[in-house]
């Protein structure tokens, strides 16, 4: 639906021709596209206007660096300025010196307050703190039950006085209880309210007055449109917010609302909600959101997830095998299971620059169910077959198909693709060996710096060679057809290659 900004800018500069210095005309044309991209990402109109004029000022007259095309240069500037607004560094939750830290969570209806109270409580608990959640939403049917259910799942207590009590008293009593019982963080879940609903806004003000929270976090839906600014401004005026939680970022909304809120209200974004699971919350990284608003993918989050799920030893063992050309179905199965732990495949692919875009355009549907078929086929192999796929003669394949509820054709496809992958991996092994280092896969997975500097085109090349966990690198296995996953992103990606490396 949306073209990427880099594609559009490239087209603009192709039209005006490539020059050594960004002229006013170049910049004006480019800014029209930047403006449109930001508006389509739901960045507030006024914020866009100010932003574009700031970028324009900076870009005019700037020399186009040798390594970059004008389009890349403009993107680099835009991205840089976006990051500036979003806040250069991430700001953690400020904990009080004398516990308990009191955190109040506010927002419109349906933005995800209750879910995120539980997610943050869960994070704090993992850090070794003693959180207490407070059910101060007495209006929405079953809001208290919801918090209690979530509390049960993460084993964090919930303070509630039912729906008849007054939210201000509930909050006060909860804080008192926390002090008595030694809870170190009190998380208050308030009812959803419209920023123009006077009685409800007064209520939330009075809760804040009564308990003097250290943090007041506004929960904002990433899909919110132009109104995000007004909502945040009003909450900020009333409550002096200390931070933002941006939710539903696992969808395909660009999240421009965050940029608007950040630039108008000025409070830092503290967390990003990325799904319905209780652990689907991530710290906020400005550079990633900037890329996303511009439609540039999010490789760093992907790498981080891979790091979290794949242990050092696992990846070392895998590397050895790959380098020695001994990668077999057992390793493959392991890899599949690791990828599954990282999250739904669609979500992972979305993070790779250009791919999410391509998938949407071509309407490729990727199902994690594909994994199930592949798994079933491998499960139907004998240990010997898994270790040595060469012995898979037709009669064996027939048995595997019957055992896994698939067809012989599917088994053939799997085996053939697996062999191709093996071949590529062997080449990769030679490559890595030839380069004199044993950095290979493991180095790749570990070094974020290296990746930040790595151009997208390099990444693509690596993926094709199978350096990424198999199945992702070779989309035919459990993914979309290779044509769709590899051809279309190329266009935008190779051009962007250097702008990423230049950034810092």
């Amino acid at each position, binding site marked *: 639906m949306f073209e990427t900004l880099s594609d559009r800018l490239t087209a603009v500069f192709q039209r005006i021709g490539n020059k050594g210095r960004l002229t006013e005309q170049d910049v004006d044309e480019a800014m029209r596209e930047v403006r449109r991209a930001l508006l389509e990402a739901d960045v507030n109109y*006024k914020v866009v206007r100010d932003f574009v004029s700031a970028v324009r000022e900076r870009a005019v007259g700037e020399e186009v660096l040798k390594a970059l095309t004008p389009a890349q240069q403009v993107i680099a500037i835009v991205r840089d300025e976006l990051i500036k607004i979003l806040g250069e560094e991430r700001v953690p939750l400020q904990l009080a010196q004398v516990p308990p830290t009191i955190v109040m969570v506010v927002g419109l209806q349906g933005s995800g307050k209750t879910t995120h109270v539980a997610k943050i409580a869960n994070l704090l608990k993992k850090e070794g703190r003693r959180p207490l959640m407070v059910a101060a939403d007495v209006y929405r049917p*079953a809001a208290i039950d*919801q918090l209690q259910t979530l509390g049960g799942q993460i084993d964090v207590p919930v303070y509630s006085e039912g729906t008849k009590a007054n939210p201000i008293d509930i909050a006060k009593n909860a804080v008192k209880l926390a002090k008595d019982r030694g809870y170190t963080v009190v998380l208050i879940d308030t009812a959803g309210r419209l920023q123009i609903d006077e009685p409800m806004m007064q209520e939330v003000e009075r809760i804040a007055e009564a308990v003097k929270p250290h943090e007041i976090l506004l929960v904002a839906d990433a*899909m919110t449109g132009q109104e*995000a600014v007004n909502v945040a401004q009003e909450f900020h005026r009333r409550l002096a917010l200390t931070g933002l939680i941006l939710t539903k970022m*696992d969808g395909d*909304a660009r999240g421009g*609302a965050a940029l608007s809120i950040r630039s108008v209200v000025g409070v830092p974004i503290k967390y990003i909600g990325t799904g319905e699971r209780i652990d689907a919350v991530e710290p906020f990284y400005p550079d990633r959101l900037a890329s996303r608003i511009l439609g540039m993918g999010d490789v760093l989050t992907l790498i981080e997830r891979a790091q979290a799920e794949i242990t050092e030893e696992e990846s070392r063992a895998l590397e050895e095998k790959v380098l020695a050309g001994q990668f077999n179905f057992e390793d493959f199965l392991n890899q599949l299971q690791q990828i599954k732990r990282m999250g*739904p495949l669609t979500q992972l692919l979305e993070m790779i620059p250009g791919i999410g875009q391509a998938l949407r355009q071509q309407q490729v549907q990727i199902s994690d169910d594909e994994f199930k078929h592949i798994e079933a086929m491998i499960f139907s192999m004998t240990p010997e077959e898994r270790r040595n796929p060469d012995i898979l003669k037709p009669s064996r394949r027939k048995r595997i198909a019957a055992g896994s509820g698939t067809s012989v054709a599917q088994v053939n496809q799997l085996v053939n693709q697996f062999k191709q992958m093996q071949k590529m991996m062997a080449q990769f092994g030679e490559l890595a060996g030839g380069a004199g280092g044993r950095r290979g896969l493991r180095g790749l997975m570990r070094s974020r710096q290296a990746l930040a500097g790595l151009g997208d085109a390099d990444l693509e090349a690596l993926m094709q060679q199978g350096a990424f966990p198999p199945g992702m690198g070779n989309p035919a296995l459990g993914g979309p057809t290779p044509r769709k996953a590899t051809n279309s992103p190329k266009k935008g990606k190779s051009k962007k290659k250097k702008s990423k490396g230049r950034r810092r």
Partner: protein
Amino acid sequence: MVFSRLFRRRAEPEPKIEAGLKKTRRGIFKDIANLFERSEITEDLFEDLEALLIQADLGVETTLELLDNLRDRIDRERIKQPADAREALRTEMIALLENATRNRKIKIYQRGVPFVILVVGVNGTGKTTTIAKLAKYHQDQGRNVMLVAGDTFRAAAIDQLKVWGERLKVPVIAHDPGADPGAVVFDGMQAAYNRNADILLVDTAGRLHTKYNLMEELKKIRKVMQRHVAEAPQEVLLVIDATTGQNGLVQAKKFAEAVEITDIAIAKLDGTARGGIAFAIARELGTPISYVGTGEQVTALAEFNPVTYVDALFFGEEEEL
């Protein structure tokens, strides 16, 4: 709350959504009125209009098209006065929204066959509240209503529906949390037959349209329904939050692909949201928009009507606050 155009055999007065939208207009009417308070139609006017429409979430494309149409009309009708241009804009906006009412299907209730309404949408748009409102409406029409708690995923979603069921005195068919939604729907269909329900309202878990598996689950729910009633679900209602930005368009598209949306409800119009996404949907998709939700009360639901929508959101009178 009346849906005169939506349901046959009803001759009732036109619905009034202005009442429910009271809070919505703060500021914008004046902005629009001010725009046209100039001596002549200049390029500035169009630029200001563009800003205003984009800020109302119509999106860049829809805004530009609307303004092109406005220019054409101004030329064609030789409009010179800004006040007439204002009227022309109103006409164009209404015309655009009519794309979203043109394809409405008349809903036909058959005796002895439950009329099944499947309610879908992304998380937090107001599905459950909309269900309560629809239940109330149909109940007031003397129909026998039953609810199905198809959201077995979100914590306490079942309880939330049950609370509504108790308040409205409507039976709720539910399983335990974590159960297969298809199984709950199966039981709901059977119960609807056994207890002679006229209307069966099926709640579903909020799901982002990007989640393939969850979208497939909706298809499955649909199949389960069709095992009992071939034409079920007779209504597939997508609930969109009025504050949604351009992502709303993608939502409508993706849900329509997965489950053949028959109706859209724009919920939470009681905020300051301008509900501009309705225009973008009307322009790009033409999926019928049927309802607007205007508050938390169980009666705060109205039929979507292009004229009232445009007037209530853009061309009304500023009220003393």
